[in-house]
C-alpha cells in the first residue's frame, strides 16, 4: 500500500521525464510549423538545393548546406589527427607526469567558451591568414575550420583516451607477456580493437562541428555564395539562423531559417542514432 506522498512523488518524477522527452519532439514540431508556409510553397526538397537570393525570390539554403559541410569536414580533418596524436601521447607515449599534466590541460580546454575562440580568431588568425595568402579578407572557410578543429580536439581526444582504456585486460596482458613495447601494444593491439570507439568519437565530433554557430559566424565571412575554395567566405546553416533572425517575422526570408533548423535537427537525429548504434555494437562485443 503506497502512501499518497509516495504516489505523488512517483507521478511527479514520471511527469518530469515525460516533459523532458516531449520537449525534444516539441522543438522539431515548432520548427516545422513555423517554416511550413515556405516549405509548402517552395517544396522542402527544392529549398535544399536552391541558392539564396532573397531579392530574386529564391530562399534556398543550398549555399549554407555547402558552407556547413565544408567547414565541418575541414575542421574534422584538422581535429582528427591532432586528437589521435594527443590521445597516443596521453595513454602511452608521454611519461606519466607529463601525460597527467597534459590530460589536465586538455580537460581545462574543454571549458573554454566558443565565443572566446571566435574572438581571438578574429584578431589573431584572420589577419594572419590574410597576410599569408594575400587573398581575400582572411575570413574564410579555412580560418573557421582551423579554429573549429582546435576547438573540438580536446573533447575528441578525451573520448579516444576513454575508448583506449576500455580494451579488455586480457589483450594487454598477452601483448605485454610477449614482449611488446608500449608503442607496439598501442599500435597493434589497442588501436585495432578501438576502431568502433574511434568512429563513434568522430561522429560525435562531427555533430558538434555542424552545430557550432559562433566560430563560423565570426570567422567564415558569411557570404551567401557557394564557396569555391577554402579561401573564400561561406555561411553555415547555423550562422544563417543567427543572421536572418532580425528580419521581418512574416517574410519568407525569415521562414527560411526554420528550414535550416529542420535540416540541423534531422542531422542531429542521424548522428545521434549512428553513435548509439556504434556504442551498442561496441558494448556487445565486450
Amino acid at each position, binding site marked *: 500500500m503506497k502512501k499518497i506522498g509516495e504516489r505523488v512523488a512517483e507521478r511527479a518524477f514520471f511527469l518530469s521525464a515525460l516533459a523532458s522527452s516531449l520537449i525534444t519532439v516539441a522543438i522539431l514540431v515548432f520548427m516545422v510549423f513555423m517554416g511550413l508556409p515556405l516549405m509548402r510553397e517552395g517544396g522542402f526538397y527544392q529549398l535544399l538545393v536552391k541558392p539564396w537570393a532573397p531579392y530574386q525570390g529564391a530562399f534556398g539554403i543550398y549555399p549554407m548546406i555547402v558552407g556547413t559541410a565544408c567547414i565541418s569536414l575541414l575542421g574534422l580533418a584538422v581535429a582528427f589527427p591532432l586528437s589521435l596524436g594527443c590521445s597516443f601521447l596521453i595513454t602511452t607515449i608521454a611519461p606519466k607526469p607529463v601525460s597527467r599534466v597534459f590530460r589536465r590541460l586538455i580537460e581545462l580546454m574543454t571549458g573554454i567558451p566558443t565565443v572566446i575562440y571566435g574572438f581571438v580568431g578574429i584578431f589573431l588568425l584572420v589577419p594572419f591568414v590574410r597576410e599569408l595568402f594575400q587573398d581575400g579578407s582572411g575570413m574564410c572557410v579555412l580560418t573557421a575550420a582551423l579554429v573549429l578543429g582546435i576547438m573540438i580536439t580536446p573533447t575528441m581526444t578525451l573520448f579516444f583516451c576513454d575508448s583506449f582504456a576500455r580494451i579488455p585486460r586480457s589483450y594487454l596482458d*598477452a601483448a605485454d607477456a610477449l614482449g611488446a613495447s608500449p608503442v607496439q601494444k598501442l599500435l*597493434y593491439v589497442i588501436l585495432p580493437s578501438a576502431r568502433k570507439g574511434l568512429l563513434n568519437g568522430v561522429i560525435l565530433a562531427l555533430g558538434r562541428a555542424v552545430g557550432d554557430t559562433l566560430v563560423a559566424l565570426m570567422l567564415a565571412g558569411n557570404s551567401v555564395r557557394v564557396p569555391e575554395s577554402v579561401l573564400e567566405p561561406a555561411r553555415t546553416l547555423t550562422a544563417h539562423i543567427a543572421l536572418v533572425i532580425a528580419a521581418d517575422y512574416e517574410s519568407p526570408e525569415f521562414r527560411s531559417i526554420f528550414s535550416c533548423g529542420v535540416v540541423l535537427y534531422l542531422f542531429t537525429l542521424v548522428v545521434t542514432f549512428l553513435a548509439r548504434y556504434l556504442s551498442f555494437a561496441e558494448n556487445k562485443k565486450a
Partner: protein
Amino acid sequence: MSQSQTMTEAIKIRVENLFFSYRNRLILKDVNVNFAENAITALTGPSGVGKSTFLMTLNRLWENVSDADMSGAVEIKLQGRFRDVYAPAMPVTELRKMVAMVFQAPNPLPMSIHKNIAFPLKLAGERNRKLIEHKVEHALRMANLWDEVKDRLNDDARSLSGGQQQRLCIARALTLEPEVLLLDEPTSSLDQASMAAIEELLVGLKDRLTILLVSHYLEQVSRISDHIVTFDDSTVVS
C-alpha cells in the same frame, strides 16, 4: 617426486632474497630458490600465497602495476650467461622474448590464428613472409595444434575451444623460441582431455626449455613435474 635439486643438474634461474610488496603489504618474504634447467618445476602452495606474483617477478610483468615494489636478485641463464633480470642493460621487452608466459585463462588476441602466432615475430620486426609462415607452423607443431588448425589459420582465434585456445597461447609463447616458459595454472579452466593434452605437450617441451608451472592439481604435479617448490606463508618452504 624429488624435493630438491641434485648437484649435477644445471641451474637456470637463481632467486635470492626476494621481497615483494603490493600496497605496502608484504606478499613474498625472503624467497631464495634455484630452478633447474630443462626440467619442469611445479610451484605449489595454498591459494593466494603469492605463486603467481612470484612468476611475474621473473619476467617483470609486475612493473605495469602501480603500488607494487620488489627487492632482491633474480638471475636467469640466458644465451649461455647468467643475466641480472633487473639490470638497466636488460630491456624488458627483450627479456620477455626469452622468458615467455602463459596465463590461467587463455587470452588470444582479437585476430586470426595465424596472426596470433605471428604476433611476436611482428613485434620483433620480422618481415620475411616465408620465414614467418615457417615459424608459425613450427610453433603450432610444438604445441601439438598444427593438425587441428592447419586448414583454418585465418579463422578468428576466439572461435577455438578453450583447450585449443590455451594451446594457441602456448604456441604463441613458443614462436620466438624462448628459453624459459612460465605457466600460471594453465589447465585450471580446461576439461580433462584438454588438460591431458597440455600436460603431454609440456613434457615434450622440457628438452628445449625450462618450465615453471604453478598448479593446484596435485596429481598433475606428481605426473609431470621433475621438481616441486612449495610456497607457504609468503616464502618457499621446500
